[in-house]
């Protein structure tokens, strides 16, 4: 249900862009207004989410760790898995962000011969990792259309990405990896029963959206072709606040741009916000120093106390009369 809903949503988005540009002639809306709106939504939305997270107190370190805490000198301390200082946290965070360390520990559970068994499951980690890295390289690669003059490192990325020299324009390896890995992430939700059960429309929608972006991009580069010079002119116009709509930019480009705009605008309000979110994961970004430092709970209720000194001051005379010993005469 969720999958079909998401698929049709993406198809309708494609149709909206197609009809808007082809029949409605709304080039300015789809080429300038919507992309700017998407960028503004993306940036303000992400900052809003970060500030909202930052408003939640984390009074106590949450030591969900996978290694030995810093302890007595002869007990070996696991410095990265259970860091005791900021340097260790940075290392743990780098492993998490760059290599998805905690997903590497992913297990699968099965019932075999009437027993529950656990086994290693690395496919999700592998597909997730290559997907994210490919996506990053693809975004970086797009900078050749964002800026003018193009910095030299762009050629380096492209020569690595296209080093197989298959066909012309050269086949980019990351494009293939992106589609294959997104397809894996999608089929995983279809065919693994437990994952299928918990999958919702908001799990499928980003996958179909990214598939749509990938397909339109690949169509443009290898098959239908767009006028790259005019297309770059449009994009440069956007990124230098001098928007213009050059003639002869294919409708497929507007579809691609519209889907990308939707992705960016959708980003801060969906699961995709894990991009900034991973840096604010309390179980990853806090060193385990519960025993060496005192952490005060910020929402502690201010308790009204009445010390013995005050008590005695209040009742001194009565206490003396009753023969109760007092500390101060």
């Amino acid at each position, binding site marked *: 249900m969720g999958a079909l809903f998401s698929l049709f949503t993406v198809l309708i988005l494609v149709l909206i862009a197609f009809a808007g540009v082809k029949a409605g002639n709304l080039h300015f809306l789809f080429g300038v207004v919507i992309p700017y709106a998407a960028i503004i939504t993306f940036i303000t939305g992400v900052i809003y989410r*970060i500030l909202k997270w930052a408003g939640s107190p984390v009074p106590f370190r949450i030591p969900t760790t996978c290694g030995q805490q810093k302890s007595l000198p002869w007990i070996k301390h696991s410095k990265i898995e259970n860091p005791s200082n900021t340097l260790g946290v940075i290392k743990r965070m780098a492993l998490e962000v760059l290599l998805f360390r905690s997903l590497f520990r992913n297990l699968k559970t099965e019932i075999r011969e009437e027993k529950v068994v656990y086994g290693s499951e690395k496919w999700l980690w592998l597909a997730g990792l290559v997907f994210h890295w490919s996506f990053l390289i693809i975004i970086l690669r797009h900078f050749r259309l964002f800026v003018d003059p193009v910095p030299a490192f762009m050629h380096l990325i492209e020569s690595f990405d296209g080093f197989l020299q298959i066909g012309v324009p050269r086949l980019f390896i990351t494009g293939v990896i992106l589609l294959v890995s997104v397809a894996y992430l999608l089929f995983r939700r279809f065919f693994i029963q437990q994952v299928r059960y918990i999958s919702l429309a908001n799990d499928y929608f980003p996958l179909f959206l990214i598939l749509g972006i990938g397909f339109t991009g690949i169509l443009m580069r290898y098959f239908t072709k767009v006028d*790259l*010079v005019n297309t770059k002119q449009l994009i440069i116009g956007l990124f230098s606040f001098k928007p213009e709509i050059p003639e002869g930019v294919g409708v497929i480009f507007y579809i691609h741009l519209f889907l990308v705009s939707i992705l960016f605008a959708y980003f801060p309000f969906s699961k995709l916000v894990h991009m900034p979110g991973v840096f604010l994961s309390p179980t990853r970004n806090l060193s385990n120093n519960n025993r060496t430092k005192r952490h005060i709970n910020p929402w502690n209720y201010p308790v009204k106390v009445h010390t013995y000194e005050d008590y005695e001051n209040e009742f001194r005379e009565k206490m003396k009369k009753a023969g109760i010993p007092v500390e101060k005469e």
Partner: protein
Amino acid sequence: MKIYDGGKILIGIIIFLLVATSPFSYNMGKASVKPEPKLDTPEIQKMEKKQCVEPKEFMKAEHMTLLNDWRDSVVREGNNVYIGLGGEVYNMSLQGTCMKCHSNKKKFCDECHKYVAVKPYCWDCHIPPKEN
């Protein structure tokens, strides 16, 4: 609303803003000039009918595919005869046919390739025409 660890949050937000707006800041103050490939070589001026091996629109979109097919045809199949739409016969040769007319590589090929950061590997093997 109270912000906890405000310093670290601020650093994070600044990094995010710098990265997210980098295409804007990179383009700031740089005037981008649209490439205008030139067709005014002596060889083209001499032609009565100014016509490439295929129509202009096809060449614009598919020249790289055509060159790739030519290379495969000559190098792998030993066939270097290309028949155009009107039955004209061409010798499949980058240096001998393409660059004979388009002898202005810098103003013809590189003009657009530079703009969109394309580095064709034609010239890894072929010798570009001499230009001043």
